[in-house]
């Protein structure tokens, strides 16, 4: 009798334990994060929350010094947005534990050697679980090599050169979520085939990405717009001071549209020079929608008809996208420092890609590299502007592309009546723009 009574507390304890486990099992699926749930009014990329202990360590390989440091700051802002969101929901359940995400910066200075040293530090010293990057295809190729050598996942969201994922440079640890110069060029050419524009001038930066884009656009125009005429083709040095002499050349050629691969500060300088010279030849490319530049244009004609191609635009109608647009706009519409009032182009696109990455990790449920690879290969994810699919053969994301000309007044400009996208972006289905798997890859 005595012994039974002695057992009593332990029975109760056992029952409580069972209850606790059952309730735990019950709530576990609910731990999964959902995008855009956090309160973003407090989010500031320059004041990251200090996270320590057992975390998921993500290396951010970007230039934080040198000429392109602005690109690094933007990436830090975008990755920080997603990390802020997930961490405020408690993190991700991996290997049976809820883990917060910790971002560790690696500065490339856009130089391969510096990048390699930064990566060695990230991998060998900071012991990151995976790394993401990066501006510049010559840096991304270092990322490819180091990912293979140390068997870490490398997510490339901003190096567009086609050859990065060809048979020679492909490895199973690298995943590219952005588009390629080929895809961008095809999307643009497909759009032009539906317009009367036929005289094009190619003005790109004189380095591998610019030359790649030039080659891609020529091929794409041949394919989609056989009657197109390329009236000139010039490659200018990076960080050019004065575009005026180039533009006089363009003017004399009778071009109707300039196609350019330029990114800031070159794309800004190009637009400002067009503005100052009172030209009305529009420019098409990926970076000619920057609101920080277009609000400074004085001439009414400058920038009108600029045609933007990207893997995400804010004027794409999906339910998720309009929710995202609203949250982002509420946070940044009156922000003096961030002049981007709407999450367009790479801003929204890359945020979506980061959600995808962490969603893949969440579904893999582990930081085991092999498991993440097998989860991501062939995976499909519903992002802001549509479906993203990770092609298994070359780890290239397959997605719809978007094109939009700029109009004025536009509801998508910061003030609501300035230069900006037309109301609705044009969706170009992925099967039109995607290239087949590279030779030698299955």
């Amino acid at each position, binding site marked *: 009798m005595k012994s039974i009574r002695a057992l009593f507390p332990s029975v109760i304890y056992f029952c409580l334990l069972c209850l606790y486990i059952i309730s735990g099992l019950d709530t576990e699926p609910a731990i999964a994060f959902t995008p855009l749930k956090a309160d973003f009014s407090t989010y500031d990329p320059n004041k990251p929350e200090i996270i320590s202990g057992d975390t998921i360590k993500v290396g951010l390989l970007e230039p*934080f*010094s040198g000429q392109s*440091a602005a690109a690094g700051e933007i990436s830090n802002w975008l990755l920080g947005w997603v990390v802020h969101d997930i961490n405020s929901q408690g993190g991700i359940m991996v290997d049976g534990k809820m883990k917060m995400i910790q971002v560790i*910066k690696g*500065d490339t*200075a*856009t*130089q*391969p*050697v*510096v990048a*390699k*040293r930064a990566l*060695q*530090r990230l991998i*060998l*010293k900071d012991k990151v679980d995976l790394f993401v990057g990066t501006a510049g*295809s*010559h840096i991304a*190729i*270092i990322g490819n*090599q180091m990912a293979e050598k140390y068997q870490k996942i490398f997510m490339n969201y901003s190096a567009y050169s086609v050859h990065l994922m060809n048979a020679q440079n492909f490895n199973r640890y690298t995943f590219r979520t952005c588009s390629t110069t080929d895809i961008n060029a095809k999307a643009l050419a497909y759009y032009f085939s539906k317009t009367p524009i036929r005289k094009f001038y190619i003005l790109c930066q*004189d*380095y*591998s990405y610019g030359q790649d884009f030039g080659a891609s656009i020529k091929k794409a125009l041949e394919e989609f717009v056989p009657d197109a005429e390329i009236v000139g083709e010039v490659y200018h040095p990076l960080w050019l001071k004065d575009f005026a002499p180039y533009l006089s050349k363009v003017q004399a050629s009778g071009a109707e549209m300039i196609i350019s691969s330029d990114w800031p500060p070159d794309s800004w300088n190009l637009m400002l020079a067009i503005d100052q010279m009172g030209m009305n030849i529009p420019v098409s490319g990926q970076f000619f929608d920057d609101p920080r530049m277009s609000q400074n244009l004085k001439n009414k004609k400058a920038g009108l008809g600029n045609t933007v191609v990207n893997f995400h635009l804010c004027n794409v109608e999906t339910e998720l996208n309009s929710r995202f647009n609203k949250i982002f706009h509420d946070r940044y519409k009156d922000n003096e420092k961030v002049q981007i009032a709407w999450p367009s182009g790479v801003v929204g696109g890359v945020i979506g890609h980061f959600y995808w990455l962490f969603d893949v990790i969440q579904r893999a449920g582990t930081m085991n590299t092999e498991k993440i690879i097998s989860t991501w290969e062939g995976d499909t994810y519903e992002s802001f502007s549509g479906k993203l699919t990770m092609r298994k053969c070359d780890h290239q994301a397959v997605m719809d592309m978007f094109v939009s000309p700029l109009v004025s007044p536009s509801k998508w400009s910061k003030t609501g009546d300035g230069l900006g996208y037309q109301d609705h972006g044009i969706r170009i289905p992925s099967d039109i723009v995607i290239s087949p798997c590279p030779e030698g890859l299955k």
Partner: protein
Amino acid sequence: MKNSFRKWLLWAAILAGLYTAPVLFGVFELNLLLGASIFALFSLSLNLLLSFTGLLSFGHAMFFASGAYGTALVLTRLDGCSLLSAIFVGAASAVLVALVLSPLLVRVGGHTFAMLTMAFSQIMYATVMKFSHLTGGNDGMSGFPIPPLVIPAVGLIDMSLERNFYYFSISILGLSAWVMWFFTRTPFGSIMVSIRDNPDRVTYLGFNVPLSKAIILGVSAGFAGVAGSVYALFQNMVSVDGVLGPLSSFTPLINCFIGGLGTFIGPVFGTGIGTILLELMSAHPEQAQLVFSLVLISVVLFLPGGAIMLYWKITSRWIVLRNKFQTAILKGNHES
């Protein structure tokens, strides 16, 4: 006698430190050390021109780059090229560049030499970018095979292992540094110093000044080439920004000044200080170069003898040293 014993002791201590490093450190620190050693050799080769001949080169990176591209090209294009011959090709191509340019370079000094070397390195930069099918242009060359070291009667040593490669490169670099040091102590080394101090006298003594200058330039370029070549093997990559960019000629110069002009070993200390500084600043890459430039400015303004002078001051031998410093580099350079 005592002095020379000290010098040998210093060499022995440095060597012992370098050879025990792999036992003490991990891969990351080892790579850091090897990277610093490569730049130390590069700075030493520049110092040969700067401290011993009084020539300031703003384009020494072109010799470093020739070495790096020479090695990378021969390993990419030529199957079965051995490791040592790849390094030899690197050094030889740097010497070749120096010899081709020497007829133009030996005639001038001072500012003109500085500007001329800068012009040549700019031309080289533009050329490398133009021949991008060969050099990879902006992408650079990477992933070329690194052959194993073949030692007769011992066998192959695999260079893909970090530790093996470390021992191999440290030996090459140490040997080069020692040969260079030995070179400054030969009678030719004295001619070198005399050219700096009083070129007319060298002519009276019956030596050909331009020829001697060309030889010094060749030697300096050759060792810069060795450094570049080992660098290409170490990184398994050559990129135009890394070896020819705006800072790649300035960095060894800064190392020489921070370490201490007028001595042989100064640049080694300079490189060490620079590496440690950058390492300390690694959490704030945005400010690293700013701090670096402030250190350079303060050294030039307040400590013209660099770290070595500081050491001498601390060991209260500074009066002796100052005299030595002044006779070594600052006095009687009549060259214009």
